[in-house]
Every structure is written in C-alpha cells, then in structure tokens.
C-alpha cells in the first residue's frame, strides 16, 4: 500500500512528537490512558482537599473555619469533582489502556475522537472550579443541584457548572461510543463475545449506560439554564412546572450514573480475584448476565432517591421493589467472587488486598443500600448522614478501592516495573482502617438524626464526627503513599517481565512490559487467544 508511507497506520510509524506536543496531539490509546489517569489523580487530590476542609469544619460543633455558604460550595464541588473528574475519568483511563490490549486491537477505533474526549475534561474542570473566584461563590446546590436551589436561588457560577457538565457530557458520550465500537469492531477475530474478559464486558455494558444517561443530564441542565435565564418554568410551579420533575429527570440520569461508576470496577475485581486465586472466575457466564441485569434494572429504580418528596403510593411501591430486585444480581456477583477464591491457592499481593477490601466494604454499602430501599425506613434515613455513609462505602471503598486495585494490578504492565509491595501494603492497611474510621461512624450519626450537608450540628453528634474527621485526615495522608508507589514504579524497579503475576491470564500479559507504542498491528493467533481466554486455566 503506497498510502501507508504517507499515512502511518497501525503497522507503520507515525510522525513522532516529543515533549508537550506528544501529549496534546496523541492518538495512542496508551498515551490517552495515561492522560486520563494522571488527570484523574490530580482531580482526586483536588476534590480530596475540599473533603478535608469539610471534615475540618465538622471536627467539632461550633467550628467557624468556613462560612456556611462556603461550606455548601465545598460539599457541592467535592461531589461534582469526585464523580465527574476523578472516578469517571479514572475508569475511562483504565478502559483506554486495557481494552485494546485485552481484545488484541491495534488501538481504539476512533483515535482522534478519543483524544478529544480527554481534552474536554481539563477545560470542564476550569469551568467547574471557576466559581471559587466569582462573586456569589462556587456552585452551592449540592452535586444533585435540585431546583429551585440551582434555578431561582443559584449563584452565577451555576451557569459555568452547567456548561462544564455539557463538556463532560460530550466527553462521556464520545468516549462511550468509541469503547463500544472498539469492542464490537476491533476484537481479535478468534475472540468470541462470550470469551471476552470480564473487564471488557463490564465496560461494554457501562458504555451503553453512558450513552443512555449522559444526554439526559445534558437535557436537564439545559432546562435549568432556560429556567434561570430564558423565562421558562419547567421547575417552577407558578408557571405550571414542578420542582419534583427536576428530581425525576436528574435521577433518571443519576441512578444509572452510580452504576456507571461501579460496573467497570466489577470487571476489575473479576480479573484480579482469579489471578491471585489461580483459578478461573466462578460462574463466568452468570457474571456477564448479572452485569447486564444490573444495568437494565438500574434504569427503572431512579425514584428510590425521592421516596420522601411525596410520590404516589403506587410509585413508591414500584420503585421499592424494583430497587430491592437489584440486590439479586448483585448477590450473584458477590457469591461468585467468593466462590472464585474457594479452594484457590491464594496469595495477597497489593492488588488482591484492595480487591478483598472492595469485596467486604462494598458489600457493607450494598446492605445499607438495601436498608435505604425500604420506603418506611428511608423516611427516617433520607437526607441524613446514613445516606452519606452508604454512598461513600459504595464509592470510596467500592469504586475507588477497585480503581486503586486496577492500577496496582496493571502498573507493572504499563511501566515495566514491579510495584513496591511494602508501600502497597502500608497503603492498603492504612486506607482500610482509616476509611472505616471515616465512614462507619456516619451510619450512627445518620441513624441518630444528623442531617447531611450542614456546616454545624448538635453536640450529641460530636464523637461520631470527631472520629470521622480523624479518619479523613489519615485517609487523605495515606493516599500520598499511592502516589509514591506509582511514581516509584514509573521511575524504576525490578523488571516486571511479560507476566508479573504468575496466575494472570489475558492477552495483555503476552506483550512486553511496557508494551511498545503499537501493539497487535496483527491480531493474536487463535491459539494465543484460546490459551489466554477463560479456558486458560484448564
């Protein structure tokens, strides 16, 4: 092909940019994965600083560290940053690095779109955080920005938040369709759908959820913008609208969104547990169906966030039962993960430790979710710290632990160096203890009546909050160990070899570590695909 000389393809070398241009112009899934993960780590610390400020303000009743209004901004920006700029980009970063390597594809299907998806995010971050410099302060209506807090009473910065959300939405939609197309179209020819690694499956399903959910969010913020500036009254009862409509639309996006943040992690855990148990995943096919079932159900449960706003009783019943139904496929997953370890030859390297931490602590979050799904009980718990405990068990000790496990697991592949197990172990045990010190007392604070999103509280909640704040400081500091471990592996260390974890199966482990710039320009052979597939342990 003469054109190959002009236009480098997977099989030829491209013009090589060095320095900042390499990162700006790149079309390589590996570079883009690195960009996503680095950006997410930075935003994780940015959001973390807000969280530490929140916990400092709440360390004892009567504190006057920040003004109540500023406190509202801290809480809102913390949530928005962690969800849209830390957790989600980290998961897309993992997808970028891993999916092409795991399915034997030369790159993502649409490499330029891929880079665009990434670069929208730093700009969104600027818009989102610009509010801190504005009169009226940063967005203060919570990460859920209910109307009329965000419409009639919202500060000017809400408009910037709205456009930040538009940018993040475009990024997610483009990222999701890229992932779908890559998996469907660029898989190694001999890899059947049902033989795809679980991480790939979980991302395929997540990508569909993203395509479904993100446009909804875009529509909702557009209506908020119109209500704020163009005289519409979607969420204003005086004009025939309804603030509850905002909640319906938001949560129609919002509940799938929480599953968007956990399903890829389910995939990660399903890769790590077999590796360190040296056994195939138990009930592999049922795991795939369980993810699909969770994704389907996640679209019809949204109103469990609104039990107390005054829904018709039939609606409450429907949403209560549909929510409880989700625990069935979730239970299947937890059962299968546990059964995977049953009689395996277990070892406890850092990725395995975090995966086990996930298994126990995420389950706690699932159980508190079940309590919240019960309408009469939720009347007591809703808007209280119990909800904060629930969401942090599923998101911090769930999603975040899973992301950390994934980074430790694949870092040797990406950098070519083994991780420092000593730092990893310290990181794990400190995180485990401190996160429980941080989040477990929130259950009690909530059950005894402490509302969420308040800058001050009654003295009887003081012990719980003191414990939480101490936990928060230790947890935050411990994450510096993670940065240390990552930087150390990037800079050097024991060579990882192709397959640093002897029990690992998957096409990524057939490549050198670090993999060369272009991988799988020719597809892996059917024999390799079979040997690294689900039957690789036979």
């Amino acid at each position, binding site marked *: 092909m003469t054109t190959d000389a002009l236009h*480098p393809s997977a099989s030829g070398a491209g013009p090589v940019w060095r320095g900042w241009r390499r990162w700006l112009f790149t079309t390589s899934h590996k570079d883009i994965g690195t960009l996503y993960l680095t950006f997410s780590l930075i935003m994780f610390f940015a959001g973390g600083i807000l969280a530490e400020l929140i916990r400092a303000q709440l360390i004892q009743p009567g504190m006057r560290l920040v003004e109540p209004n500023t406190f509202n901004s801290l809480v809102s920006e913390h949530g928005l940053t962690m969800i849209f700029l830390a957790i989600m980009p980290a998961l897309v970063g993992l997808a970028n690095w891993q999916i092409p390597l795991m399915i034997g594809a030369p790159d993502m299907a649409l490499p*330029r779109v891929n*880079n665009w998806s990434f670069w*929208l995010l730093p700009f969104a971050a600027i818009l989102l955080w610009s509010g801190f410099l504005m009169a009226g302060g940063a967005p203060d209506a919570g990460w859920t920005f209910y109307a009329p807090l965000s419409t009639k009473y919202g500060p000017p910065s809400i408009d910037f938040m709205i456009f930040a959300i538009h940018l993040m939405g475009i990024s997610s939609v483009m990222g999701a369709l890229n992932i779908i197309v890559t998996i469907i*179209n660029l898989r190694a020819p001999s890899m059947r759908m049902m033989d795809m690694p679980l991480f790939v499956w979980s991302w395929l399903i997540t990508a569909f959820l993203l395509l479904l959910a993100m*446009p909804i969010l875009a*529509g909702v913020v557009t209506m908020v913008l119109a209500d704020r500036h163009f005289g*519409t009254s979607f969420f204003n009862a005086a004009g025939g609208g309804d603030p509850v409509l905002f909640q319906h*639309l938001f949560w129609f996006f919002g509940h799938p969104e929480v599953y968007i943040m956990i399903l890829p992690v389910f995939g990660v855990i399903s890769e790590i547990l077999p590796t360190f148990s040296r056994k195939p995943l138990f009930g592999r096919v049922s795991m795939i169906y369980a993810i699909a079932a969770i994704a389907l159900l996640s679209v019809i449960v949204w109103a469990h966030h609104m039990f107390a706003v005054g829904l018709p009783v039939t609606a409450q019943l429907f949403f209560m039962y549909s929510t409880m139904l989700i625990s069935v496929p979730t239970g299947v997953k937890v059962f299968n993960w546990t059964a995977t370890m049953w009689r395996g030859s277990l070892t406890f390297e850092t990725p395995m430790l975090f995966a086990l931490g996930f298994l126990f602590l995420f389950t706690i979050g699932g159980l508190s979710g079940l309590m919240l799904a019960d309408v009469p009980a939720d009347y007591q718990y809703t808007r209280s710290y119990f909800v904060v405990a629930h969401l942090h068990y599923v998101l911090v000790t769930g999603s975040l632990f899973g992301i950390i496990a994934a980074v430790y697991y694949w870092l040797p592949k990406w950098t070519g160096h083994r991780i420092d197990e000593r730092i990893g172990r310290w990181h794990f045990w400190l995180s485990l203890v401190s996160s429980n010190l941080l989040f477990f007392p929130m259950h009690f604070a909530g059950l005894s009546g402490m509302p969420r999103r308040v800058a001050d509280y009654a003295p009887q909640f003081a012990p719980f909050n003191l414990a939480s704040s101490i936990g928060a400081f230790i947890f935050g500091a411990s994450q510096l160990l993670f940065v240390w471990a990552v930087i150390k592996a990037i800079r050097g260390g024991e060579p990882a070899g192709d397959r640093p974890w002897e029990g690992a199966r998957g096409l990524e482990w057939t490549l050198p570590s670090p993999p060369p710039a272009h991988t799988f320009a020719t597809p892996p052979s059917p024999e390799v695909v079979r040997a690294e597939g689900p039957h690789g342990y036979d």
Partner: protein
Amino acid sequence: MTEAHANGYYVAPPSPWPPLAAAGAFLLLGGFALWLHGYGPLVSAIGGAVVVFVAFRWFGAVIGESRAGVYHAASNRSFRYGMMWFIFSEVMFFGVFFGALFYLHYLAVPWLGGEGAKGAAHLLWPHFVNQWPLLVPPNPSEFTIPKEAMGPLGIPTFNTVVLMSSGVTVILAHRALLAERRRALAGWLAVTIALGLAFVALQAHEYRHAYLDLNLTLNSGVYGSTFFLLTGFHGLHVILGATVLTVILARVLQGDFSPADHFGFKAASWYWHFVDAVWVGLYLFVYWW
C-alpha cells in the same frame, strides 16, 4: 473483524485538531456563560469560530484520508457504528424534553388543578384550572398570557409535509448515488436542502406569529416552555443537518462518493431521517395532544 487486521487497521496519526476542538468548545460554552453575565458575546464568538475552523480541518483530514484509500471495510464499520450510537444519544437527548412534556401535561398540571393522586397541590393556587395547552398558569401575574395555543393546522401541517418529502428526496438521492446518476444525485440533494431551509424559514415565521400575534413566549408558563424548547432544539438540529447535507453536496459536485463507498453521505442522510422522526413526535405530541 477479519479485515480490521488483514489490511492493517488505519490508526490516525497524531493530530492538533482534537485538543483545539476542545479549546473551541470551552470558549464557545464558557463564553456563553460570560455573555449571560454581561460580558458580551466576544469570547463565545471566538470559540464558535475555532470550532468551525477545526471542523473544517478535521473533517478535511478525514476526507483526505478517505480519498487516499487508507480506510478499509473495518474503518468504515467503525464510522458507521459510531454514527449510529451518536444518533442514539441524540434520541435520548430529545427523550428528556418529551419526558418533561408528558410529565407536565399528564401529572404536574392536573395535580395543580386538583386532580389525581397529588391533587392537594390545588391548595397552592385555588383558582387554577387544569387545561392543556396551558394558557393560564397557576400564578398568571408572573407570566405573559398567550391569547391562544399554537394550532396544528396551517404551518405545522404544511411543515410536516415539507420535512417528510425531504426524507423521501434524500432517499431518492441515495438511489441515484447507487445507480451512478450523478446529476440526479446532486439535484435531489439540492432539493432536500431547499426543503430543509424552507422548513426553517416557516418555523421562524411561526415563532414570529407566536411572539407578536399570540403573545406566546418562553415566559408563558410550561406550555410556552415545552413548545419552544422542543421545537427550538429540533430546529437547531434541522439547521445542523442541512449544513452537513450542504457539505455533502459540495463533495458530490467535486466527484466524491461511489456506490461502494459513501459513508459521509450515509451518515448525513441517517441524521436527516432522525431529525424527521423527531418532528413526527413533535407534531403529534406538541401540536395535537
């Protein structure tokens, strides 16, 4: 799948357009927020210019690659699936506005009027009467009260015919493309674009009528809100679709597209059919119900 590898799947080389496109989008939207707060449209305009410029260069690069023959079946399949799922996300985007329309029409407004499970809301504005199209909102003093609703007959029905015919003419253009009748292809495409523009012009006329004669505005309560947001976003999509079709027409005139290979044409026509289909929903649910 097989060709993906056999021919060496084309992975685009590093490119400045994606980060520039992101910067353009940032200026466009961030500038719009500044505009809302009294800083004028300048930043937004610069952003818009950047976006248009990048679109030209980026699509130009893709067209160049396509002409150079680096795309094989697998690349084309990527584009095709990508476009399909993009349209799916657009369907969801319109879905929100339709969802809001149904909720307001069938639940919120009746409740405010004292009907149904949450009829206690009537206590808020005891004089409020449930009706749809909602001409008198619960608190009339805050809103511009329209004289009457926008009826379905006249322009909306005529526009339906216009847009539906444009769906047919784009199919005829495709037929002509497959049969290698280039003049017919260009002709039908031009007719399609003209019909699209006619639709937009009539819609603009209808908006004028709404604002000046009927007193129906964005500020007329939820009826005006849903009417203008739904038809407005649809209109924007028609304008975008017509612009894309115009680019396609320019490429046709330059000799692009063959019966075997015309993804750009197909993507544009899918988009056009999608815009058509949304209109059918609008016509039924915004104008008739």
